[in-house]
């Protein structure tokens, strides 16, 4: 029974496959320090919550091993992407979400998201996304050049729930992680 192989069987390989897919087609893949930090932070929390749910008697080492292995995998993944130092304008993204809050059609979604976060233990969760989320979206906007098609690959519900709104406001297309396989299949067919 090796955690290495067991965890491996549970990895979601779609991001890794997507990187290979996109690179082989000449697409430019970029990330930022904010994304890197955020991913690392999320990873630790996710691993620990999963192990906590299993109520192990000696969870300390299991968590440590899993954290180490997942961080290593993340580092390998990031080596395949260009990490850019990005200057961005968070204010425009803030205004965008404030606009969603003021809109009767979209406000309930933000409320539902806040409740979902609170149920997961984030007692500080408010209606607006975290500052780092807004920074990530503003960085994506900063990367975008006229005429380019820019995809933001994310699993973040503050982005995924508002894909159409984000595309309309910033011309950035949301690509949820769970749709990556479908996206690759469709592009294969298209080619």
């Amino acid at each position, binding site marked *: 029974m090796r955690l290495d192989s067991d965890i491996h069987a549970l990895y979601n390989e779609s991001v890794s496959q997507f990187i290979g897919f996109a690179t082989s087609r000449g697409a430019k893949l970029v990330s930022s320090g904010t994304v890197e930090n955020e991913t*690392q932070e999320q990873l630790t929390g996710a691993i620990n919550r999963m192990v906590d749910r299993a109520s192990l008697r000696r969870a300390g080492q299991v968590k440590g091993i899993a954290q180490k292995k997942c961080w290593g995998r993340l580092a390998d993944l990031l080596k395949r992407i260009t990490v850019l130092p990005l200057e961005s304008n968070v204010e425009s993204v803030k205004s965008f979400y404030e606009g969603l809050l003021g809109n009767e059609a979209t406000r309930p979604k933000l409320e539902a998201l806040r409740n979902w976060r609170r149920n997961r233990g*984030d007692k500080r969760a408010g209606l607006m996304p975290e500052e780092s989320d807004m920074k990530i979206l503003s960085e994506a906007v900063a990367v975008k050049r006229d005429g380019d098609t820019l995809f933001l690959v994310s699993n973040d519900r503050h982005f995924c729930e508002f894909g159409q709104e984000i595309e309309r406001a910033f011309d950035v297309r949301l690509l949820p992680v769970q749709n990556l396989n479908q996206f690759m299949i469709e592009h294969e067919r298209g080619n």
Partner: protein
Amino acid sequence: MNQSSETRLTQEAVPKRAYILLFVLSHVSAVYTELKLQKLVFQVQNEAKISAGYRYFKHYYGPYSRELAIDTLTLINQGLVHRETVVGREYPYSIFRITDRGKTYFNQSVLPNLSSKNVERMRPIVDKYNGYTPHDLAEAVYRRWQIEEPSKIDSEIVALETDLNTVRNFWETQYFPDCPAITYYLAFIEYSQDALQKATTIKDPVVKSVLLSACLEMNQKLGGIAEVCSKKGECPARVEQDLCRNPDPSIYEVFGFIEDFCQRQKILPKLWDRDLHELMTGDEYERLKDAFRTYDTSSSS
């Protein structure tokens, strides 16, 4: 460092005992890990028989000198020594180097006051031990400072197990899922407890003594950080950005020694190589797999 603090740096500002540290650092290009720096200064001080040096606490700090740790920080703050933190293949670690300013200070203010006899005695010892890897040097020092009476080792192991439990309980109360540092601390403590448990069946008192000393040192370090974390409302992750992701490398250095030693002595495999059979029951394993399978990985931040 600005001009005013430059001129303020007098011989009095640097503790006299720090000349051993400055001598070591001026003599080598770099010292890799605080673990090695501690043990190197210790060996130089003891083998060269330098008086008025650092006080080392052999049982409770491994041997480890808190004064040396503080002097190192002081010299770093004064711009005489540079510390670089490296992520490392397995764990983060520190590299210490004397700066140009430190070299000037050493040559002008320290070296002229050192007796040639002391210099002659210290030089070959630095050369000798600088060639050791951090783990080899730490083991050599722990062996030298081994606890003499075998019966005392076992009772000290029992006492340390209690101490580790206390520190573990503390970290469990501080635990929150998003903290990577506490995740590692709890893993290190649990591993050390397993190692000490296994060590009770080992016959060789030297091996037991080395493991005990290293675990004592780690326990002390974890206790030291606990003091920072226990301050109300002061999570180091927030107080000092990134500290939790890049905490004091010296804890990792000592733990790195412990698991390396355990592997070499066949006490336990390294933490990352441990078999899950030893860590959980079949039922627990099934629960873990289920938790991984059903966990909602979407995020909100």
